[in-house]
């Protein structure tokens, strides 16, 4: 079962929930935790483990081999201005390239073969029953989506779908998060009971509905702020799966990179509530 943990706004506790939930589940069962927030991958700071596998990840970009008639078709077909025909040169701007292959495959002289260029690095760790996979975008690479999709591919090739696979997703509602959540079975939206939290939650709900996914909300830092998020969820019939209390001691544990549920039973109870809602999902599927 694939479960994404997402939030419109950053810093709402997405990573806290993902790491605590995965580690807690892994006390009993095999679990995979995947950090798809490739721009700022933080889950790894909370997980220790032994390295199973590490590899560079590449995206394909055209490289000019100089052996061409300079017809300029490549520049014409590239919709991202990533290829420039300048005098007797063809220049490729790899940061702008979306790897669509159009210039390469339409080139009459086959002068723009696609070659790999490093965009990031994937790491796979093991800690007890918990498998942890993260990818990290090279600084200067601007597109997160190809790295996210390759990381998902790695997961599908290396782990069975039967076990719980948790994806810590990038923040926002644009292309990277869509790539992260579009194939999962269930999405947990983490929010804060504040006006910013509510505003961004509404945008995220709109996105999840557009993708037609099943989802529920976890309210983090419960007790601070106002009633807005709870009222909204009630009015929209959105399941609130759990409420993680607002507590300075939790923020302190987080600041040190420690798991919270190990210290607070009430947090563990909230995780149990979330896990129980997964069980219902599985039952729901088999009917």
């Amino acid at each position, binding site marked *: 079962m694939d479960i994404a943990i997402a939030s419109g706004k950053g810093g709402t506790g997405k990573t806290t929930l993902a790491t605590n939930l995965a580690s807690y589940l892994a006390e009993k069962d095999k679990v995979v935790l995947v950090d798809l927030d490739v721009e*700022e991958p*933080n889950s790894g700071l909370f997980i220790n483990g032994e390295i199973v596998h590490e590899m560079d990840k590449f995206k394909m970009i055209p490289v000019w081999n100089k052996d061409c008639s300079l017809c300029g078709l490549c520049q014409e077909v590239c919709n991202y201005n990533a290829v420039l025909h300048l005098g007797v040169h063809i220049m490729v701007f790899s940061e702008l390239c979306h790897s669509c*292959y159009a210039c390469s495959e339409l080139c009459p002289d086959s002068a723009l073969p696609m070659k790999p260029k490093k965009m990031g690095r994937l790491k796979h760790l093991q800690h007890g029953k918990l498998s942890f996979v993260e990818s990290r975008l090279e600084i*200067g690479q601007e597109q997160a989506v190809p790295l996210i999709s390759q990381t998902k591919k790695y997961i599908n090739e290396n782990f069975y779908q039967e076990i719980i696979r948790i994806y810590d997703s*990038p*923040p*926002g509602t644009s292309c990277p998060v869509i790539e992260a959540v579009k194939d999962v079975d269930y999405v947990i939206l983490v929010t804060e009971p504040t006006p910013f939290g509510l505003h961004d939650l509404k945008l995220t709900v709109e996105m999840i509905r557009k993708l037609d996914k099943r989802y529920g909300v976890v309210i983090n830092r419960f007790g601070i702020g106002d009633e807005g998020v709870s009222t909204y969820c009630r009015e929209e019939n959105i399941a609130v799966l759990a409420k993680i209390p607002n507590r300075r001691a939790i923020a302190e544990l987080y*600041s040190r990179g420690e798991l919270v549920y190990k210290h607070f039973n009430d947090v563990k109870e909230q995780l149990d509530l979330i896990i129980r809602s997964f069980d219902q999902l599985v039952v729901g599927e088999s009917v």
Partner: protein
Amino acid sequence: MKEIVIISGKGGTGKTSLAAAFAYLGGTDIVTADCDVDAADLHLLLQPEVKKAEDFYSGQLARIDQDLCNQCGCCEEVCRFDAVKFLNGKYSIDTLGCEGCGYCSHVCPVGAIPMEENNVGEWYISTTKVGSTMVHARLGIGAENSGKLVTKVKNEAKKIAEEKDLDFVLVDGSPGVGCPVVSSLSGADFVILVTEPTVSGLHDLIRVHQLVNKFKIRVGCIINKADLNLKVTSEIKDFLTQEKIVHIGDLPYNDIFTNAMVNGQTIIEYDQNGLSAIINVSWKKIKKLQQGDN
């Protein structure tokens, strides 16, 4: 005119609350630009009244004209993004998957795939509650090219600041290290990094600073929630010294950020005492740093 950009790498560090406080202090001397177009929240505190709204088009999307399509399937073969779907005997484009590369359109033998301009959002010019101009935007769900919308918002803000001969454009930047942040940073004169003393905060600070370094912009840093973890705070300070980043100020871990937000207020309006005073001093410091290189 100087362009000051506030970014944080990691979310939840209080970046937007600080941006709003600075915008409040700057009053009508500045133009504010909300470039966090993906999760734009600044308007919740500055309560702008929209004066002008415009659609924003960026990139293209493919559409298959069913009357012309002869079902050859060439489009499906070339699309690297699995965006051409064959459903109920018809080819169609999955608009969330389509990257707008136009390859399918090029190879379609009967010209059945027009590429259409993609409406990715809306942008606004507004007047904030302090009477200053604010440029902001709303990105459509699942839209691409948020970087281009960021550039649009920023350029409009700069244009207005120049026309009115104002001193500063204050930019609330995007999270992460990808294309929207790169667009937020390009052309900036000064960057304020807002961080927090957590292992994630420090980790993201180092990453986003690596990115800022590529632009050769001067950098200052504000440590929010500085008393949450004194050990990490001192690690952050060491990092600032080592990288020659100006340490602008420290703020304590405090619920006032949230309480002010609940009231739809900036911190300056909500809390006239401690926090406001620190932010005031920080803002003066930031302004002074801008004069240095004139």
